[in-house]
Structures are given as C-alpha cells and as structure tokens.
C-alpha cells in the first residue's frame, strides 16, 4: 500500500481526506475529513514517533539504539512537539 501523503505536491498546502472506502464490502464514504495530527508529520517524524513509543518513551534508550547523543534525540522530539502544536494553535 502507498504511503499517505500529508502535503500537496503541487502547492505544499496540508491535505485533507475526501473519500474513505472499505476494502471488504466496497462501501465508500465521501466528505471532508482532517488528517490526525500524527499523520500530518513527515515520514521520518512518524518513524521517530513509532520508535519513541517502542522505546516506552525513553530518550536514553532511543539515543543508545540510534547511536546518537541524548540532546540530538531530545531535539528531534522537540521538533515533533512543535509541529503538533502548530495545528492545535490554528484551531
């Protein structure tokens, strides 16, 4: 399955979901649905969040696995937090 894009490749604006379909019964729902906050992140940031959860939220463990320094991993987390905060503030 293709990866879900969150940014319009033409104008770089955030994308919304217009149509959902059930693969089993082919039911289709049409409307305008907003992407969840985590789905709006870049693929790299989403992978970071998944790894963060896998490590039970331990930045030290993430730093050890990625062989990066603790502040580098913490800065990545801060960047993700900042991106999640922006849409929240816009609402």
């Amino acid at each position, binding site marked *: 399955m293709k990866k879900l894009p969150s940014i319009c490749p033409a104008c770089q604006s955030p994308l919304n979901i217009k149509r959902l379909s059930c693969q089993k019964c082919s039911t289709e729902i049409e409307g305008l649905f907003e992407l969840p906050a985590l789905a709006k992140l870049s693929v790299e940031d989403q*992978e970071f969040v*998944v*790894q963060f959860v896998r490590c039970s939220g331990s930045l030290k463990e993430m730093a050890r*696995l*990625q*062989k*990066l*320094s*603790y*502040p*580098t991993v*913490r*800065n990545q987390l*801060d960047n993700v937090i900042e991106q999640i905060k922006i849409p929240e503030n816009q609402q």
Partner: protein
Amino acid sequence: MTNNELKNNSQNRTLKQWLFNPFQFIAGGNALFLGLVIMLAAAFLGSLGDLHFDGVIDLHIGKPAPLWFFIAEVLIDWLCLSIVLLIAAFFVSRSSFRIIDVFGTQALARTPYLAALLVIMPKGFNRFAEYLAAKGMQQPTTITIESTDVLLFIVGIVVVLSMLVWMVALMYRAYSVSCNTKGGKAIISFIAGLIIAEILSIVSIWQLALRTGLR
C-alpha cells in the same frame, strides 16, 4: 522502522559530521570526560612550551609558570564560556536542556586547540616569534633564527588560525545541539556569550596571576 534499520541509519555518518558536529553522536558525561582529558593534556603540553590559554579563544607564548596555573587557565576558559552560554540558553531556548550536556559539549569543543599546541610547540616557532617581537619593539636581540624557523612560524600561524575557526564552529554547534537553539537568536546569543566569556576569562586569569604572584 526496526531496530536494525535504525542501527544501519546511524552508521551512515560522514567525516564532516564527526569533524563539525560530533555532538550529534556524543554529549553528556562521555563528552565531559573526554573533554576534561583533552583539556588536561593541553594544559600539560602548554606548560612544556610556556603556551598559555589566557582567554576562551586565546593561545599565547608567555612566562614560565607551574603546571597548576596552566590547568587553572584551561578550566577557567571552559567554565566561563559554559556558564555564560548556559545563562544565555535560559533566555533563548524554548526547550528543556541538561546542564551536563552544555558543560560536556563545550569541554569537547576545545579539542582543536590541543592540535594547535602540537604544531606550535617546536622551539623554532617560539624563536621566530621572539625575534619578531624584539624587532617590532625595535629592541636589540641576540636571537639567531634558522631558515626552517620562518617556515615553522608560517605553518604554525596558519594551523592555529584554522584551529581557532574550527574550535569556534564546534563551540557554536555544541551550544546549538545541547540547548536546542537555532537561527538568528542562537547566533547572536552565541557571539554575545563568547565576547562576555572572553572578557570574563581574561580578567579572571589576570587576577589569578596577580594574586598568586605570577605577574
């Protein structure tokens, strides 16, 4: 992403990253330990050639002094910059940071000056520097210079200036990574911090020398 994929990603590191931003990979206690070892080695080598670290970014040929004074100089330089940048980060950084990362990365950022010392330690460099100083002040001199001294001096100056630029770049990276500061605010606060720390360290080392009778 699996753990194996993460490990593979972490191996894709370039020499440039290690040279100009090693703090992506090393910080905290490890950086502090390594930095302290390097600073003590620099102080010891400096004491052998009377090379004084008499300011955060200073390296001068000076008067003979006991080893403890050279150690005090490097520690004062490191502490002045770390403390000033730590205070700056409290105002500039919007995220939390660990004090050990600030002190550790700033200690490790001083590595280039150890390399600079190794280049300017040969006697020929000092001899030509003393000869130039005497000529500059129009004083009579008995110093006889050898043809290799000029070459040693020129190479030494180029290396020291390169190491100075590298060290300042590392200090900025250390500040940026350990305190999560970016952009114009980070650059301005770093430059202001470096100037304040330079003044503080020069005054502190001068006072220490005066109070202990070394000047």
